[in-house]
């Protein structure tokens, strides 16, 4: 009797473990790991990337292009404090583009959860047959190889010094003078968006935030939002930044007017780094969407860890009709071009006449 009870408990435990394995996608994972089809090979690779199982992931690659594991890991996991180092692969979608007996192309949408929110990336991956299994051809990363050199950096820096007195009427310094040079409220399918440009008209740097209040017909506020990260907050003298303020769920017919407020603060700032935006072009991406592409070149000597691209799009009359923004996964190494792309909505793409790109950057303090 005692033996039967032990056997029963053991069988029950095994059954529960098996049920848990199936429930957690073990069957699917096993099928993916088998890599007996191109899709299974890609899914298995992505599952290993998701689990940071780098050895296993590297083993699933086709090595005919001489890709090194450290380069593969560096591209996926990021380096130099880039945005990718603060990201994790949250999910992915895979669908076939082309297939034959020995070669297949699959399109993958990576969904990264990052320090700045959810980010999507689309790539086409080639898969080749290797005996009974399929291997993913991961393009060999082409990291910039900047020759060793000494780059003098002597850009300006502004500091705010002195005691800030609370005595009324004592000497003080005014906040920087900034001006909202354009504002446009547009309706999107799911929101109202207030966008435009702001300029620092002063001779000192400004930290700027823009807020907008939608007012109803009776003058009462309908909603209030600020520009959050869709603006370059730190503006040097005479610098212009686009801004975008989203009001999800609002409709333009509910709005009589918009009240705009610019909030400038006097802050310490540096004129370094200078970032060139090269070869800006409007193109189609792999999904057929219209995007503004180009590359960023950090002209300073310090690594820019996280860069954000803000683009204002103008119609033929020079009015701002849309503001897009996008983060760059890679850190900006001095003198090395890093590609970027920001989406342009289809209706904006047809009306767009010109654009202006601004780069927002974050650099971690040096030890």
């Amino acid at each position: 009797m005692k033996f039967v009870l032990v056997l029963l408990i053991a069988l029950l435990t095994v059954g529960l473990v098996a049920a848990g394995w199936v429930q957690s996608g073990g069957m699917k994972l096993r099928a993916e790991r088998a890599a007996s089809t191109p899709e299974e090979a890609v899914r298995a690779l992505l599952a290993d990337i998701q689990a940071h199982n780098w050895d296993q992931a590297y083993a699933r690659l086709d090595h005919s292009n001489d890709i090194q594991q450290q380069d593969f890991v560096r591209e996926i996991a990021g380096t130099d404090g880039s945005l990718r180092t603060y990201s994790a692969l949250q999910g992915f979608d895979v669908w076939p583009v082309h297939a034959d007996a020995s070669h297949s192309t699959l399109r993958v949408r990576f969904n990264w959860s990052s320090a700045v929110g959810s980010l999507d990336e689309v790539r086409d991956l080639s898969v080749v047959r290797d005996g009974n299994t399929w291997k993913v051809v991961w393009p060999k990363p082409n990291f910039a190889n900047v020759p060793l050199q000494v780059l003098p950096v002597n850009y300006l820096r502004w500091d705010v010094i002195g005691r800030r007195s609370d005595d009324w009427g004592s000497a003080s310094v005014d906040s920087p003078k900034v001006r909202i040079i354009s504002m446009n409220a547009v309706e999107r399918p799911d929101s109202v968006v207030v966008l435009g440009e702001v300029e620092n008209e002063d001779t000192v740097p400004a930290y700027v935030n823009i807020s907008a209040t939608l007012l109803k017909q009776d003058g009462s506020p309908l909603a209030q939002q600020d520009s959050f990260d869709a603006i370059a907050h730190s503006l040097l003298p005479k610098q212009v930044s686009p801004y975008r303020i989203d009001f999800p769920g609002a409709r333009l017919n509910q709005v009589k007017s918009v009240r705009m407020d610019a909030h400038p603060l006097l802050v310490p700032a540096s004129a370094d780094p200078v970032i060139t935006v090269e070869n800006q072009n409007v193109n189609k991406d792999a999904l057929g969407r219209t995007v503004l592409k180009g590359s960023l070149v950090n002209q300073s000597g310090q690594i820019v860890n996280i860069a954000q691209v803000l683009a204002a799009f103008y119609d033929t009359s020079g009015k701002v009709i849309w503001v897009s923004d996008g983060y760059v996964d890679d850190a900006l190494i001095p003198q090395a071009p890093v590609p970027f792309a920001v989406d342009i909505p289809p209706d904006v793409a047809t009306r767009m006449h010109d654009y202006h790109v601004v780069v927002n950057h974050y650099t971690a303090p040096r030890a």
Partner: protein
Amino acid sequence: MGRTIFHLSAVLLASALPLFAQAPALQVPATVTAGQSFAIPRNGRGTFYLVGPSHVLKQNVDAGREIAIAGRDVSTSGTYQAILCGSEGCTSATIQVLSAAPERLTFLLHPSRVPVNTPNAVNGTAIVSDRFHNTVVAPAKVDFRLSLAGEEISTRSVQSVRGIAWFEIGSRPKQGSLQVTAALGDTTEPRVIQQVASEACGLRMSATPGPHAVTLQTDPIRDCAGNPLPDGTIVSFTKTDAAGKSTVDTPIKKDRATAKFEVSGPAHISVACGEALGNEISFAGRP
């Protein structure tokens, strides 16, 4: 809490006095200067209250002695209520405490930075007060001395009206620190305004071709009055060629802004600073 109740009680007592005041009237001065001690003659015993705008005094009074009020108890100008309660009832009188001689200046100068050649852009306001921070409403002469490096000091004398003297001027054509000092007798309050260059004027760049790139440099960037724009001001260079548009926002350094672009075919380069547009340069091919 206890202090508040005490104040409220004193005020209520003062307002209720006419209902039961039967005692002889208090012999108080009609006006007193802030901070000045004085005495009130009194016969008999009782309790004396002095209720002022920011202070309440309570003291016991002995027979045959004057009620001495210290200067610190009347340091705030305004209307005071003197109340004396004895065995025969309460009596009250009003004392007006006037501000003392002008001795202090509070000086507000706006703005702290101003572009050159801007009319009526600078305004200063001085508030005249005595040593106890009471506003002196009597007219007083305030001198505003304006000095810019390399220029003679100019002075504007303004008579204060109800304690306030003010002036308004335009900024000078030359940039630099404008020191403005408000003076009242020996008391001076200095402030500094930074007069800064205005918008760029006559922006012009030149190009120096290199093996693979062209280096662009502006002439010294100045406003229309000839003042150099401050270093750090952003200048935007834009190159348009077959590869697309390339832009760089670069700060002025030592009066000039520089940029470098790779040019491999026909290209068109322009420059701008704020609202000012500069010249344009076209390349037919490799520099």
